[in-house]
């Protein structure tokens, strides 16, 4: 009986917060989505780049030499074969793959062509990949007697920066809601918490609230979809996998923000803490730029943050024509992290019960 009753209450509450909810769920998302049109260029910096031999006759020494050269302007990673390198490219483990041709040290070789493959959907890496193409070409030409050419090849569909930013901003809205509006409603719940604890349970209150707000996250998705249609963007926002990851992301973010609120006894300090976590998550998750932009340290930090993987999967499923199974391990890790955050939430609820 608890859940439907509390759900009814949430709907009633939402009616009284219609203006706020409209602003947060419709106006703000639409504004964010529209502002993507104002973005046109990005800042190049070092990023993970894959190296793979074109065939088996490429020696380890040649690969090592190429790797040493790429270290100057990227974080090179050597892959065993082309399909592994391509997989890494699609999963944003690397942002370009340099294919090394055979015969670099053969006396009779006059011209060699390297291929630098980039993913067309990772728009912020378009300009840096051109820079890498130029720098790598100059470096390799100096190292080898033969004339070296680096050919740049784009795989997958190409997208505008505006399209690229759409899933980013959608995730931003989810983060904003989880770390600001949800804590606000929890703080308001404090007015009636004693009665709720007698008549129901904190577990039921929290579960209902998170479930209800997770469902509300479909509204900004619709708003983004409408904006994308209006702007004629080529983005599949309603991909079931992307929506599932978005909702999963909201659940673990909500579990974190709710835990913070409960651990701070629903105090204002909890709301400030949540805003701080929000800002940190935005800063360090590399939601917009590929990891490795700005600093190698941020690259390593981003790789440790689940939000980064939420972003990679959401972006990939909305922009690329890739099967969801390609990101199976990412999704599994996100599910595991969600379970962990829910466990922490449960512990914080138990702690609250023991301290009141």
């Amino acid at each position: 009986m608890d859940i439907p009753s509390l759900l009814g209450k949430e709907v009633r509450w939402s009616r009284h917060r219609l203006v706020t909810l409209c602003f947060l769920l419709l106006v703000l998302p639409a504004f964010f989505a529209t502002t993507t049109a104002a973005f046109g260029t990005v800042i190049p910096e070092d990023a993970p780049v894959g190296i793979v031999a074109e065939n088996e006759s490429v020696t380890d020494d040649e690969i090592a030499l190429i790797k040493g050269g790429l270290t100057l302007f990227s974080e090179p990673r050597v892959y065993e074969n082309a399909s592994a390198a391509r997989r890494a490219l699609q999963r944003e483990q690397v942002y370009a793959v340099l294919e090394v041709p055979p015969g670099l040290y053969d006396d009779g070789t006059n011209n060699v062509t390297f291929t630098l493959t980039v993913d067309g959907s990772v728009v912020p890496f378009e300009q840096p990949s051109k820079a890498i193409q130029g720098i790598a070409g100059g470096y390799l030409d100096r190292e080898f007697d033969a004339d070296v050419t680096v050919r740049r090849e784009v795989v997958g569909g190409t997208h505008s920066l505006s399209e690229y930013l759409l899933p980013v901003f959608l995730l931003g809205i989810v983060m904003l809601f989880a770390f600001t509006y949800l804590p606000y409603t929890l703080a308001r719940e404090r007015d009636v918490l004693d009665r709720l604890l007698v008549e129901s349970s904190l577990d039921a209150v929290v579960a209902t609230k998170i479930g209800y707000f997770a469902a509300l996250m479909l509204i900004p998705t619709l708003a983004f979809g409408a904006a994308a249609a209006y702007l004629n963007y080529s983005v599949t926002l309603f991909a079931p996998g992307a929506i599932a990851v978005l909702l999963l992301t909201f659940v673990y973010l909500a579990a974190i923000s709710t835990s913070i609120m409960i651990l701070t006894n629903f105090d204002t300090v909890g709301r400030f803490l949540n805003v701080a976590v929000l800002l940190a998550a935005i800063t360090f998750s590399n939601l917009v730029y590929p990891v490795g932009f700005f600093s190698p340290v941020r690259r390593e930090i981003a790789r440790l943050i689940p939000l980064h993987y939420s972003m990679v999967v959401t972006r990939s499923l909305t922009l690329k024509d890739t099967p969801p199974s390609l990101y199976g391990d990412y999704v599994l890790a996100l599910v595991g992290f969600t379970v962990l955050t829910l466990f922490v939430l449960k512990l914080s609820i138990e702690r609250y019960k023991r301290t009141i």
Partner: protein
Amino acid sequence: MTRPTDDDRTGGDDHRNDHDPILALREISKAYGDVTALSGVDLSVEPGTIHALVGPNGSGKTTLFRIALGLTRPSSGSVDAPADGIGPGFQRANFYRDLTVAENLDVFAALTGADDEAWREELCSTLRLDRVRDRRAGDLSGGFGKKLDLALALLNRPAVVCLDEPMGDLDDVSKTNLLDLLTDYRDEGHAVVVSTHQLGAFADVIDHLTVLHDGAVLVDEPRAAIDLGEHDSLHDLYVARSLAAERDATGDI
């Protein structure tokens, strides 16, 4: 009733006699760090009674009240509460401030399984809540807020209601109406526990008096057994006994 979150609360007996307590707190102690709020307190509430819990500020009334409701865990002791729960009325009105009065009643009726529309209407009428039914609860005056809180406590006709300062913020007419409501409720066989500073207001209706002082029970007697002695009223007796306990504690003559 056994509350799953509360190890110290035990289930009520479905086969209790009329004079068996419907709510029993036994040997309750509660300490907050070095501060002892309650020390070995017993509270036994029988059905069909109005049980007043009085005491000066800091005597432990609110702590005992919260322990009875399962909102605070005792350091030791046990709570035997009725299976259908306790209707809580709070000193600081507890309801959704963003919902209207009617919506609050709807939400908590659904939550507690209160489906007696006639009773709900009677509550609203007696507490004169019908005139503010569509008003946002956060905009209510203190008196109407208290009335809404009381209505929510009584909504599902619980076997026991525990009301903390139920007269607070109420006007004299509303106080009279509330007393009538509570005595009728008592006469139907329910138990009413009131924690109050205003013993005088309840003097004519209470059946049992428990006085707390410094976390211990000073007086715990049925109203009929209390000898006023030289005092003119129950209120005067309570004040005199409390002052005497205060003097004993501080060593004043």
